[in-house]
């Protein structure tokens, strides 16, 4: 089974399709995510495509603190995505609620509502940081698939 698993993991790393969802953000992160897709940064080199429907997407890219009204939609979108799925929180607001933490209408970061695989801090997170975050997420998928190699300490 090892070979098939290796190939499947390789395929998952090489073609991460993303869907973008704005959960109450101030829009700075959204325009930076879109900028990452335009010719200057062009993430299609890594096989990243922006998909409109959760059914086709692997990575849910969220930006913004989760407000009370948007919470259900976020959960609904997350549940519609087929396994294996990852969530990337872009921007400090998505990571921890950011500046709006503690406001009465804000739940906090994305991880208060759905499990998050990668956090990209920054207010807003620049396109370079977003690309770096996605690449690190893919790398983590890679080592997670490899069996943990025991640490051989000088031959003992």
């Amino acid at each position, binding site marked *: 089974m090892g070979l098939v698993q290796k190939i499947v993991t390789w395929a998952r790393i090489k073609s991460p399709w993303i869907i973008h*969802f*704005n959960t109450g953000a*101030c829009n700075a992160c959204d325009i930076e995510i879109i900028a990452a897709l335009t010719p200057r940064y062009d993430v299609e080199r890594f096989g990243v495509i922006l998909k409109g429907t959760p059914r086709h997407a692997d990575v849910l890219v969220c930006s913004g603190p989760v407000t009370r*009204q*948007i919470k259900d*939609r976020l959960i609904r979108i997350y549940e519609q995505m087929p396994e294996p799925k990852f969530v990337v929180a872009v921007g400090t607001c998505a990571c921890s609620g950011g500046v709006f933490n503690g406001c009465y209408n804000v739940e906090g970061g994305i991880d208060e509502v759905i499990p998050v695989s990668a956090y990209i801090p920054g207010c807003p997170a620049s396109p370079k940081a977003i690309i770096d975050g996605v690449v690190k997420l893919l790398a983590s998928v890679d080592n997670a698939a490899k069996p943990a190699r025991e640490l051989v300490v000088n031959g003992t």
Partner: protein
Amino acid sequence: MPEREVKLTIGPQHPMLKEPESFLLTLRGEKITDMTVRLGYNHRGIEKACEQRTYIQDMYLVERVCGICSHSHSTCFIQTVEEIAGLAVPKRGLYIRTLIAELERIHSHLLWVGVAGHEIGFDTLLMYTWRDRELVMDILALISGNRVNYGMNTIGGVRRDITTDQIPQILSAIDKLEERTKYYIQVGTEEITLRERLSGVGKLSKEDAIHLGAVGPTARASGVDRDVRRDDPYGAYGELSFDVITDNHCDVYGRTLVRLGELMQSYKLVRQILRQLPEGPIVVKAPRKIPAGQAVSRYEAPRGEDVHYVKANGSDKPERVKVRAPTLANVQVVAHMLKDGYLADTPIVIAAIDPCFSCTDRTIATTNLDNGRTDRMDWPTLRTYGIEWYSKQGIDFTELNRKLRTMRESN
């Protein structure tokens, strides 16, 4: 087309509005007969949070009300606090603050021109304006260290100075941008399809604009000659000369021309500011505790007049902070503009007041009155619907897209 009642929900968030807007449209066939607006989807409770934080912390909070024009809110807020504390901000600080304000207007208007093109199917415009916009984003990053949310303001002045070697870089970027904006103005005025698709859409007469309280380019495109930079000058605008662009098309086409005209004015202003940049300090020491008092300040944000009211009670935390975003005034006007317009025009009319473009889950729920079936079309579907509906009238952008692409390849 069977008579159907359409419920248009637009969300999530226009940050300037602090809430996304949701419209309930009632349709007679193609015509919109009635609409109601539902606001409040992502109210984050910023005003309450401001009362629990010190003035400096509030500045960072207020700056993040809107990502696209964060400088507008932070400047407006700082002006009230400085007025209450009676601080005399040094001239150079005011000039730098005004420079960032105009650079932000340039990047916001370029972003809007691209989005407007996208909404009506003219996608090449989006690609090119966004590519040109990277120039002004680089300048903003050069000066303030960040592409968005610059954090240039502090109570009593500005945090970073403009060094002499940055000035030529800014000027060369402005020259390039001006030449490209002239190109977009030429496209805007000469292309028949663009003019046909935008004229007569989202009509707003001058009287209605005044009565309903429209602000910014939306009002100026209906001949309302109001601009806070000239009527109630703040920052360095008192010593700068610029003209207020108005237009009497009273429709989306007029708004496009006003915004393009304002871009040209902003380039002129940036050059003036850099030429008359006075010497001297950029900030003055501000007390931690602001004496009791209250003040109102107005600011001409890219989308319109932004109003802040602050009441201080002598402690280091404000007693009340009131923020009124420009689009809150304009959203009432959209309700009026859409009446007896076509469903096909909804995307561009709403986009014309320049709300947030990243609304991803804008959906329409159409209920078919005959069989009572409810479907939900999302924003992209509404957008295509509009583009197709118009192409039946012979207005279509494929030819234009191709022409623009080939034209750009040649020069």
